[in-house]
Every structure is written in structure tokens, then in C-alpha cells.
């Protein structure tokens, strides 16, 4: 027992990730935390997407289940779990059964290397970026399997579209990533890194986020990645595989209930995964904004207060809405519930002001905030853009993004050479 406690405690002083330090216990804890956090994030995303989209479209969105529809995702989850699990008679049972599992597995496995902070990752692989791109592209396998196993025309077309789309956008995506890896090699030793943590540390030591590096080269590479990642996750305006107006629901037309919810879960966690790649590679990962412009211990302190302030702000919004709730007795439970939710958020906010918590949490906070920004973009795209046609999608992927990313890659290499020779 003593040995175990010692084993657990030994990691606390480490400055490595649990995986890198070889501590299985903490790695397991981290996996559980990330899994929980991700599930909560997907639930929150579900609610936020419906609400934000609704407000963009001059309507209210969910308002009935819980105050301001806060319990809607839970109600949806219960509904999906209770639904009859239908498998078409003509379907290939085993493949049909495995497809959602593969998609979910791919979407979740990626998070092993996502660095929420210098030590806040399950492990730090030296091929982190490759691992992420490789594993996340495995989900196309699940999609093709789902479309094939359904043994029906619409899912088949959806799956064909999806695989073609994912494969072609991966090329431009990969090339955009390579230009970042070139940037990481601009140090004394001249060696770059594929490690996710290493990439953020390179941005830290160079004192600039890679989106601003060799302006506008970094920005263009980021733009290419940002477009490709929307296509990669099959979201609007590239949501052809599940084009509702053409193919009803694309590759998961025949899926219902729990299996369908697995696809849903995978889609949203894949969105979070690619967004976290983008954040890590271009937006400085866990680094706080303006770290070189507003440096010094005072600014550090000010920025470390942000997590607490955010939660207090959310709590204040809850209290504001509580005050605005109708006074009718029918709304009494909802009003109490909303106030309770506000109190919970406020307490979390207060806890986040405590010094030791504050120091440990701010990395995660900045990382999550940047990812949340991407999530908002996803919703915004969905509310704004019409859908591309299949051939146009291919045209954008191969004729626009691919040459652009090749050009950016060459120019980045040239710029890197130029500046390192200048030194």
C-alpha cells in the first residue's frame, strides 16, 4: 500500500506527461478525465449548437426541457438509448455492428496525444501529429463500412462521397501540417519535432504563434487546415455525405437509437479533435494570448484570473436569466434549477481563484477556450453557407487547396532557410 501511494505521489513532482513518465495510474486517471470531459463537451456542444443556431435564425431553440432547454441533451440521450435498435434485414450484421464502434474508437483514441498543458496529456509521443492524423483518418473506414453494410442506395452514395472527400482533403491537410513542422526546426539545433507538446514548446521558445510566423505564410497554412478540417469532419458547407436534402441522412440513414448516437458522438469528438490539432499547431496550444507583448508577473497574474472570471460570468448570466424567468408557479422548479446551476458555476469559478488550482488549470483553460472558438466557427458555418456539390468539393480540394498548400510549403521552407542563414 505504501508503495502504491509512493508510486502515485512520485508523479506529482514530475514535469512530464504520465505516459512519458511511465506512470500507469495517472495515465489511467487522465484517460478517464479526458473521456468524461469529452462527453460533457459533446453534450454541451449539442445544446450550444442548437441554441446558437436558433438565435442566428431568429428563433429560440430548445426552451421546454429544463430552464432554457439545458436538459435537452440529456433528454435526447435518454430517448436515443430507449429507442428500438433496428438492423435492416438485408444488412451485413457484423460489419453493420462494427462500423459505429470503429468511428467512435478513432475519434476518442486521438485524444491520447492532445496536449491540454505541458504535462496535461496522456502521453507525449514523438510522432504525435502523425498519430493524430493517422488515427483520425481511420474513421473513414467506419463510414465506408456503415454505408456498405446498410445494403441500401442512399447510405452507399453517402459513404462513397464521404470516403472520397476525406481522402482528398487529407492531402492538403497533411501538407499544411508539414509547413508547421518545418517552422519547429527553427532553433539552435535545427531539428524539428512531431511531438504535440514539442510543437507548442517551439512556439513558446520562438515567442510567436505559428499562425503569425512568416506572415502571411503561417496564416495561409492555417487557413488551408481550417478549410480541410471542416471537410474532414463532414460538417457544413462540406456535409455532403449526410446531405439531408439529397440523401436523407447519408451513411447513417439506416442507423437508429444507440448506434446512431455513437455516430453523433464520434462526429462531435472528431470536430473537437481536429480543432485541437489546429490550436496546437497554429494557435499556441495552451499558451495564453499576448505572452510576449504583455509579459511580466503582473500580467501573468491578470491572465491567470481569467478561468475564474469566465465561470463567474457564466454564473452571472444564469442569475440574470433566473431573474428574468416568468413568475408563474409552473416555472418555479425551472427557476430554482437555473439558480442552482448558476450557484454551481459560481462555486467552480471561486475555486478557480485559489492559487494552486489557478496555476494548474490555466493551461487547460486557454486550450479549451481556443477549441471552443473553433466550435463556434463550426456552428457559424452551418448557419451561413449553402452546401458544395460533390464535383465542386473535389475541385476545391485538389485544384485550390492542394496547390496552395504546396506553394506555402515551399515558401515556408525558403523563408526558414533565409532567416536561419541570416542568423
Amino acid at each position, binding site marked *: 500500500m505504501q508503495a502504491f501511494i509512493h508510486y502515485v505521489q512520485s508523479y506529482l513532482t514530475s514535469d512530464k506527461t504520465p505516459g512519458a513518465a511511465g506512470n500507469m495510474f495517472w495515465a489511467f486517471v487522465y484517460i478517464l478525465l479526458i473521456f468524461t470531459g469529452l462527453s460533457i463537451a459533446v453534450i454541451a456542444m449539442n445544446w450550444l449548437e442548437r441554441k446558437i443556431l436558433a438565435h442566428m*435564425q*431568429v428563433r429560440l431553440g430548445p426552451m421546454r426541457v429544463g430552464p432554457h432547454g439545458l436538459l435537452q441533451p440529456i433528454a435526447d440521450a435518454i430517448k436515443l438509448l430507449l429507442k428500438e435498435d433496428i438492423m435492416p434485414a438485408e444488412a451485413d450484421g457484423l460489419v453493420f455492428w462494427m462500423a459505429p464502434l470503429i468511428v467512435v474508437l478513432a475519434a476518442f483514441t486521438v485524444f491520447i496525444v492532445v496536449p491540454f498543458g505541458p504535462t496535461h496529456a496522456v502521453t507525449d509521443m514523438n510522432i504525435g501529429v502523425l498519430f493524430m492524423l493517422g488515427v483520425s483518418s481511420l474513421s473513414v473506414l467506419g463510414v465506408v463500412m456503415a454505408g456498405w453494410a446498410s445494403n441500401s442506395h442512399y447510405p452507399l452514395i453517402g459513404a462513397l462521397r464521404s470516403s472520397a472527400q476525406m481522402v482528398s482533403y487529407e492531402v492538403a491537410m497533411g501538407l499544411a501540417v508539414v509547413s508547421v513542422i518545418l517552422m519547429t526546426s527553427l532553433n539552435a539545433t535545427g531539428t524539428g519535432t512531431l511531438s504535440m507538446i514539442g510543437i507548442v514548446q517551439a512556439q513558446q521558445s520562438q515567442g510567436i504563434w505559428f499562425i503569425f510566423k512568416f506572415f502571411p505564410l503561417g496564416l495561409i497554412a492555417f487557413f488551408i487546415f481550417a478549410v480541410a478540417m471542416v471537410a474532414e469532419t463532414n460538417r457544413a458547407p462540406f456535409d455532403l455525405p449526410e*446531405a439531408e*436534402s439529397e440523401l436523407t441522412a447519408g451513411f447513417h440513414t439506416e442507423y437508429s437509437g444507440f448506434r446512431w448516437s455513437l455516430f453523433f458522438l464520434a462526429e462531435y469528438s472528431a470536430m473537437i479533435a481536429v480543432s485541437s490539432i489546429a490550436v496546437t499547431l497554429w494557435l499556441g496550444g495552451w499558451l495564453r494570448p499576448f505572452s510576449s507583448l504583455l509579459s511580466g508577473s503582473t500580467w501573468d497574474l491578470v491572465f491567470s484570473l481569467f478561468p475564474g472570471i469566465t465561470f463567474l460570468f457564466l454564473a452571472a448570466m444564469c442569475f440574470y436569466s433566473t431573474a428574468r424567468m416568468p413568475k408563474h408557479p409552473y416555472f418555479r422548479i425551472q427557476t430554482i434549477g437555473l439558480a442552482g446551476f448558476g450557484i454551481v458555476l459560481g462555486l467552480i469559478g471561486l475555486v478557480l481563484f485559489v492559487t494552486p488550482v489557478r496555476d494548474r488549470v490555466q493551461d487547460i483553460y486557454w486550450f479549451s477556450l481556443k477549441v471552443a472558438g473553433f466550435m463556434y466557427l463550426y456552428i457559424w458555418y452551418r448557419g451561413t*453557407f449553402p452546401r458544395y456539390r*460533390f464535383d*465542386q468539393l473535389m475541385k476545391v480540394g485538389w485544384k485550390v487547396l492542394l496547390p496552395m498548400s504546396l506553394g506555402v510549403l515551399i515558401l515556408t521552407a525558403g523563408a526558414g532557410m533565409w532567416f536561419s542563414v541570416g542568423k
Partner: protein
Amino acid sequence: MHQNMTDQNTSLSPLDLETPEKPFLDANELVINMGPQHPATHGVLRVILRLDGERVMGLECVIGYLHRGVEKIGEHRTYTMFNPYVDRMDYVAAVSNGLGYCETVEKLLGVEAPPRAQYIRVILTELNRMASHQLWLGTHALDIGAITPLFYTFRDREEILKIFEKYCGARLTTHAFRIGGLQYEAYDGFEKDVKKFVSFVAPKIDEYEELLTTNRIWLERTKGVGIISGKDCIALGVTGPVLRASGVKWDLRKAQPYANYKNFDFDIPIGQNGDTYDRYIVRMAEFRQSLRIIQQAVDGMPEGPIMAKVPKVIKPPVGEVYHSIEAPKGELGYFIVSDGSTQPYRMRVRPPSFVNLQALDVMCRGAMVADVVAVIGTLDIVLGEVDR
């Protein structure tokens, strides 16, 4: 059979859509059934698509899922009793249907509605044209994947429906007009409401255009899609904005003026290419022309009676009459044969949607699956009218 499908010269030949002899994967050919339960077929239209990958080799429309025998019902009702039935054909433009029917019976009877009634008719009909176009715009954009315009157009369409509701108590199937004029005088504040609506909706149309007209993806999805030439349009009997977008300046409001339209000053917007984008532009321009007409009608509304002298029991003389109006979707014609009794001997409706739908096959050959959805949207069909 295969030759027939791809041969461009026989683009108007009837389709042979039997089940392929071989299984689809071997034949490199996919027959897909779209509808009658499908989110993008605007009701219960069934389209059988013959695909080569994503490319459409041919299609066939199957209609009749919403057939209610409206024409036959007309032969068993008196002229007055049949009036509300016409609202149920093109239910998004019920007022236009009513106008067409009332004017046809009036022509048969040889009476004409008084000027004030005609002005109110024009205002309501043009409002309905806008409501119909708003519904078209919302659903068309939704089919192409832009989900937001739908809610904007429905928000503004609501204002039109409120005016209808205040005028006659109904929002959708209005039964606004009577044979010989109107039953209801314009309510107090009708003119104010209409004027307020005109000034309210003008900037909203710019808002719709801002979302779509110069949107890159919208341009790519609509330009050069579903092209139909003016000649083909005339050959197929296609009318309305679809015909005008192909460069044919034909609008019954100008060509055969009815209901006082000759007193109003408005333009007929036309397109050149006959593609989906031109049809979009034409309809957007029609919004503005409708606003112009409404503005003029409200400003110049005469005083006077709203009902002509029509006998209590309508017994038109023996004879037949055809009268057509420019409904939001095209030429809406009524052909009535009277045998001198209180009921028509034969009632025939020429609905624009039904005729325009014929062009779907011509417009979709060689296009992608996604274009079929866009073309169905741009044809602006209402299945209630296609099937009657």
C-alpha cells in the same frame, strides 16, 4: 435503351425506365427512388433517378400521390360552392387561385368587378405572390444547404399572413374573393398595414440577397445548373419565372392584362441564361416589382362599391370560357364549360406547377444528384397543384 438515355438529340424523348436486367453494381448504373417521402421533393413527388455514379442519366416523375379530384368536385358543386376548393390547389398562393377562378366565372357571366374591388384584389394577390416567393426562396435555399434563409423568409411571410388574417380571417386558404367582387370591405387600417409592410419588407429583401446573391457557394451551386432554353420552355409549355429567366418576356399581367394590371407601372424582369441562378435573380426582382405594384395600388385606391351586380344564384349562359392569370408560379388557367345550369358541365384547371414539372427531366439530364434537388427547388412546384 442505354443509347436512348445519353443521346443529347433525343432529350425530349420519353424515358424508358424499366428495372435494369443486371444487378446495379454490375451494370454500373444505379436506379434510385427519391420520394414520395423525401425532404427535398416538396411534398409527395416521387422521382425515379437513373444514375451513373453521381451523374443523372435520366429521371421520371411519378405524381398523383396528392390527387383529390378537384376538377371533378367542381362539376358537382355550384359556382359559388367551388370557390373555396381552388384555394387548396396551390395552397401557398391561395389568393391567386381565387382570383383566377373568380375572374373566369365573371368572364362567363359577363360582369366585371368594380374598381375598388379590383384594387384590393391586386394588393392581396401581389402580397400572395411575395408570400409564395418567400416560401420558394426559403425551401430552395434549404435544399441547397443554406438553412438560415428559411427562417428569415418565414419571419417576413408571417406579416403577409397577418394581413390576410385581418382581412378575411384565414391565413393560408383565404377564400378572399367572391364572384363579382369581394365580400369584405378592407378593414380599418388595411392601407396603413400594407404601407407598413411595404416599408418593412423592402430592406428584408436586401437581407436575403445579402445572404445569397454573391455567396460563392451559392453561385457555384446555381450558375449553369438546370439550364433550359426559351425554345424548350415554349415547347414544353413552361411559364412564369422559369420562362422569363430563359429570356422570354412573357407575363400575362402585361400580355393579356386582367384585374386592372394595365393601370400599374411595373417591369418584367427577365434573365438570359435560363439557369437556376437566373431564375433566382428573376424572382428576387419580382419581389421588388410586386412591392411597386402594391405601393401604387394602395396610393391610388378608389372609393366605391366592392361588389358588382351578380345574381344570387349563378346560372351562366351556355358556353365555354378560358381565362388565365399570372400566378406566382406561372400561367394559371381555368377552362369552364357551362350547360346553363348552376353547376359547371366541365371544369379544367391548367396549373403552372404541373406543366413546369415536365421540364425537370430536360433540366436534369447530365447533372449531378445534388442538382436534381436544386432544380426541383427552382421549379417552385406545389404538389397540391400538380395533382389537384
